[in-house]
């Protein structure tokens, strides 16, 4: 009897061929190493970053000769000495660090109710609205958003025009530190909500109901049930917001009016304005180190939160 044409369809043949190719490239005896093979893309990516860091480290130890604009062949720690002693870099580093801490705290405070409402609301319409409002800023981009604030908050912007209608003279709402913090919080909010939402989703609603049935009011339930269980989300969101704020360039550059530089701007200046790539590399390394230390402290104190994918001690 002739076999039906569909008994061994073309798709299966293709799959067999692909499996044959895969077996030739990666024989069965290598199977135990397969999980490590999965790591290869990540290793390649991190490896490239490490290579870049090694190059940056090399550049950081070379000083610029301003008579030839060539870098020294010898290594020295002169750039590190400058970075640690010149007032400009200390001011900028302190400003960046304080801003990162403030922005992280404020963003988490704003992000939590947003994420909680988005996760717990019974209204599909409201959930959709909150999701759209959350993702919309991602499509706009940081620079455009910062310029948007210039239009809204500028001397001739919408806010000042509205104030003018009630007789208030135009006031400077941008080009200062609070404006930079405001812009960063607005930029970071979606990141924080996205990191918090999975942690809140993982808290069974029944726990809150049980706390209520045992006599806890909303505040006690929030403090003793929701907040502790949401800690992994707070840690994940906090780490992401902290590191992104610490290294931000566009918001302080656009909303700071030139007088609220962060470390990233100081790095840019050294690379592109004074052509001193050695000092720029030094500042870049120090920023990486500062960010890594901060994240390390958070992980040491609180665990990795949602970033540990459920394996943290939180």
């Amino acid at each position, binding site marked *: 009897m002739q076999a039906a044409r569909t008994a061994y369809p073309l798709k299966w043949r293709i799959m067999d061929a692909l499996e044959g190719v895969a077996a030739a490239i990666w024989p069965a005896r290598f199977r135990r190493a397969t999980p490590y093979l999965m790591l290869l893309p990540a290793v390649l990516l991190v490896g490239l970053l490490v290579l870049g860091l090694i190059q940056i480290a090399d550049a950081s130890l070379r000083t610029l000769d*301003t*008579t030839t*604009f060539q870098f020294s062949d010898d290594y020295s720690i002169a750039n590190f000495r400058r970075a640690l002693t010149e*007032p400009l870099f200390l*001011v*900028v580093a302190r400003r960046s660090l304080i801003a990162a801490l403030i922005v992280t705290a404020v963003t988490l405070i704003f992000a939590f109710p947003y994420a909680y409402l988005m996760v717990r609301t019974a209204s599909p319409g409201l959930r959709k609205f909150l999701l759209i409002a959350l993702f919309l800023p991602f499509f706009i981009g940081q620079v455009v958003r910062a310029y948007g604030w210039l239009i809204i908050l500028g001397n001739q912007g919408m806010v000042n025009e509205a104030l003018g209608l009630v007789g208030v003279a135009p006031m400077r709402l941008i080009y200062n530190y609070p404006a930079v913090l405001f812009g960063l919080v607005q930029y970071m909010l979606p990141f924080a909500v996205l990191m918090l939402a999975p942690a809140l989703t993982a808290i069974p609603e029944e726990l809150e109901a049980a706390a209520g049935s045992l006599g806890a009011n909303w505040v006690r339930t929030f403090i003793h049930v929701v907040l502790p269980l949401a800690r992994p989300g707070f840690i994940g969101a906090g780490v992401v917001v902290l590191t992104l704020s610490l290294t931000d360039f566009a918001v302080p550059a656009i909303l700071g009016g030139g007088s609220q530089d962060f470390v990233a701007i100081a790095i840019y200046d050294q*690379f*592109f304005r004074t052509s001193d790539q050695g000092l720029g590399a030094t500042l870049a390394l120090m920023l990486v180190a500062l960010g890594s230390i901060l994240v390390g402290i958070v992980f040491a104190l609180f665990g990795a939160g949602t970033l540990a994918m459920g394996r943290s001690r939180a």
Partner: protein
Amino acid sequence: MKRFRPTLSQLSRRTFLQATAALGGASALGLRGAHAQEPEKPAEIIVRAWGGSWVDSLKAGVSDGFTKMTGIAVRHDLTEDNEIQPKVWAAVAQNRVPPIHINWDTTTNATKSALRGVTEDLSDLPNLAHVTDLAKPAGLEGFPIVNTYGYVYVLAYRPAAFPDGPPKSWKDLLDPKFKGRLAFYNDGIGFHFPAQVAGGGKLEDIPSNMQPAWDFITKMKAQQPLLGEDPDFTTWFQNGEIDAACTISTNAREARKNGVEIEWVVPEEGAKFDTDGLWIPKGLPENELYWAKQYINHALTKEAQQVWLDGLGLPGVVPGLTPPKDLVDDPSYPTTEEDFQHLIRISSKVQVENESEWFSKFKAIMQG
């Protein structure tokens, strides 16, 4: 009789350029047969330029004429001058073809590239025979850069904010009513030298003792000025954010063209005068180098300079240019010896060697 026709690689660069420059001149005179001897034309040449009215002026004055003359398209690369520099330096260091044919650059920035040895020598451009001393980069051997015009960092102001008449001194900006209403470049460029005079110092003390400048800038910091780049000044004037700024006159003129009421002066302490120029990075194929040089040579013709610099409102390096009507007898358009007496000019070499320290000092004051 067969004539020996060397390949491009067999020609020494100078011999080649002398020959082709002569042929170029011949072709400009209408000797069409000369075109047969020109090196192969690239489809396009890439000129790095500043955007907005800057590139519009270059296109109208130089690029369009060059394309019409040679048939070679000109692409303007609007990468910032500071950002193209490391790319060009890296390309030359790695023996790669650089990403641009011509860099339109500040003379200070270009001097860095010249000191690093990444610029082609332009001494053999035929039109250099007809330019003023301004075209020659001070303190450098030969012509690694050709300065193409000068500009002044003027004190630009909104007349409405100065009801008693134009500001006479940079010190006038210390009036408390201007708190938060002033603007400077974010690295202080253009303001260091007049600040030295306004602070009671001497220009001869630059760079050894600039404490008077830093003291004056510290006083100015209390005014909480905005700090930005060229486009910011025009925007800030247009949006009513500032009343006065130390900026290149071109930016102020651009704001005025856009309907903003704005004037400018050279205060009694003086104003910084500087130049921009064109240069060619090393590493181009010989034929492209030739046509890049032809571009710069064309930029030094009176016709090209007149249109280009009418757009920018800046004085060129070719004698006999006519100032734009709105800039006749304007201090930002110096043409006579007397005009230059009110302007401060410090050699590019001194600026380049000390710029990093000055920028840091200015920023340390303003960021503190």
